[in-house]
């Protein structure tokens, strides 16, 4: 084929208004061939996975800036502003302490109950908020998605980073409180770093999957609070699995299954790192393998599944 071939069908000179030009056009192969010859690409086509990852990496400044901007906007209406970043988790912990620690006496048999509870609440809040943010990552930013091109995974990932930053701030407050309780840094505290990294991967992966689900079915975000609350209550955020096992009211396999659920695994690993009286016997077997497995499974699965619908986000 040479460049003189084939005349583009649109090239018909202006014609008077008439019936739709349905049968008028040249066979489709001609246009596809013309596009190929001139190196045009299909608009809006999903890039291959490696190109997608490269695109995300080149947007890392955007991912960071979006997180910061969201954070600023979140508290821009409040008098106390950024102080709420600290107040919210602490108030949450105070409520749980009152309800579970004192009224329901969950602290019975749990030494260092307050650090135990605070770690649980902060670590859980990180995962819960990341997932909640994920359900709104696409559906809450349609203006941006419909106006500009960028790898859509930037949004859920950015929101996950934002939550990670909140977690670090909460943990800094926790460390100050630990000092007050007479707990001082030991080498074991460093174990919190890999635990939180794995938890971040896990949460980001599930958040990506939820972002895709909620982009298509917005009702997911209505359902999330119930799912998350149930998940929180079965993950030992404010009570101890050891007490549960000791009570003898549940078969061992139920307790073991609950202990192996990802939320419980990450919470207990951070407790193991930070709370001296929380010993290795309270961790499920092969706990690091479990933590890494959940993280890789969720992140790889969530990322690829999100990418597979890349071209559909924000349509219609």
């Amino acid at each position: 084929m040479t460049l003189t071939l084939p005349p583009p069908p649109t090239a018909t000179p202006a014609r008077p208004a008439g019936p739709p030009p349905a049968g008028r056009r040249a066979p489709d192969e001609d246009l596809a061939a013309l596009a190929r010859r001139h190196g045009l690409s299909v608009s809006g086509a999903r890039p291959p996975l490696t190109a997608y990852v490269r695109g995300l990496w080149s947007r890392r400044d955007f991912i960071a800036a979006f997180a910061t901007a969201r954070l600023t906007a979140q508290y821009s209406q409040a008098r106390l502003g950024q102080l709420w970043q600290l107040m919210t988790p602490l108030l949450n912990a105070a409520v749980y302490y009152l309800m579970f620690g004192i009224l329901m006496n969950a602290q019975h048999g749990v030494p260092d109950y307050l650090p135990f509870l605070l770690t649980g609440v902060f670590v859980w809040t990180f995962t819960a908020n990341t997932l909640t943010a994920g359900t709104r990552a696409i559906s809450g930013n349609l203006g941006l998605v419909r106006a500009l091109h960028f790898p859509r995974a930037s949004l859920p990932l950015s929101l996950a980073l934002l939550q990670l930053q909140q977690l670090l701030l909460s943990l800094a407050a926790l460390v100050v409180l630990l000092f007050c309780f007479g707990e001082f840094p030991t080498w074991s505290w460093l174990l919190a770093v890999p635990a939180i990294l794995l938890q971040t991967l896990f949460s980001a992966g599930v958040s990506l999957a939820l972002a895709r689900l909620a982009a298509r079915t917005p009702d997911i975000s209505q359902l999330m609070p119930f799912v998350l609350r149930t998940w929180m209550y079965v993950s030992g955020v404010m009570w101890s699995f050891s007490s549960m096992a000791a009570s003898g009211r549940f078969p061992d396999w139920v307790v073991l299954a609950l202990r192996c659920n990802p939320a419980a695994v990450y919470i207990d690993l951070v407790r193991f790192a930070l709370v001296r009286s929380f010993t290795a016997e309270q961790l499920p077997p092969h706990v690091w393998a479990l933590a890494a497995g959940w993280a890789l499974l969720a992140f790889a699965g969530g990322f690829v599944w999100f990418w597979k619908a890349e071209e559909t986000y924000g349509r219609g």
Partner: protein
Amino acid sequence: MADPGAGAAAPGAPTVIADAVHIAYTVPTGPGTHRRVHAVRGVGFVARRGESIGLIGSNGSGKSTLLKAIAGLQQTESGRVYTRGRPALLGVDAALMGDLSGERNVILGGLAMGMSRSGIASRYEGIVDFSGLPDGRDGRENALARPMRTYSSGMAARLRFAIAATARSHDVLLVDEALATGDARFQRRSRRRIDELRAAAGTVFLVAHSHATIRETCDRALWLEAGTLRMDGPAEEVTAAYEEFTRTGATPPDE
């Protein structure tokens, strides 16, 4: 056969090829019920470098949907749109992130489009100047510090146009009625900018209600009616035929 669309058009290389494009989407109409909208039905054309193409047609004829498909922001049901590079779409549903300030939107919009931080910093003033929003320098209020949701739709459209148009030169620029908003001064400025972008060897698509705008800005026009391509030719002739069509009182089939 010679390249016809417009006799004067330079025989540029194709930049956008629409190949029998059908676009349909579902609109939720209530709990569990949907309505299928077949917005574009079998549209095909070839746009070439240096062309400036107006899209005209009644409301709901599929102009904006087609523009979104060219931008790659709307999936096609069947058929394909091929483009050179990544087209940039400038539209009027403008606030990118309503609860963030105009300044933050400029920075985030630039970063999202793949500009570097330093690239944005060096262009920032140009973007703000182009938008014509008061930036506090001459003693007026600084609109850039306000959340974008407090902007009038005209202000928001101007800022968004400025953000997208200041990015690196695009092979294909799509403008959805941006010229219809904003005051006369901004319209002149944006028309100049479109001319500049065209001169930078791109192709411009323009959706506008005003046929005067189409005739002034475009050399070619596509007339869509009920999702089908009714006429494709020099802007003067197509707008004249469309005006004749509406004047004779023929109502578009889908309204």
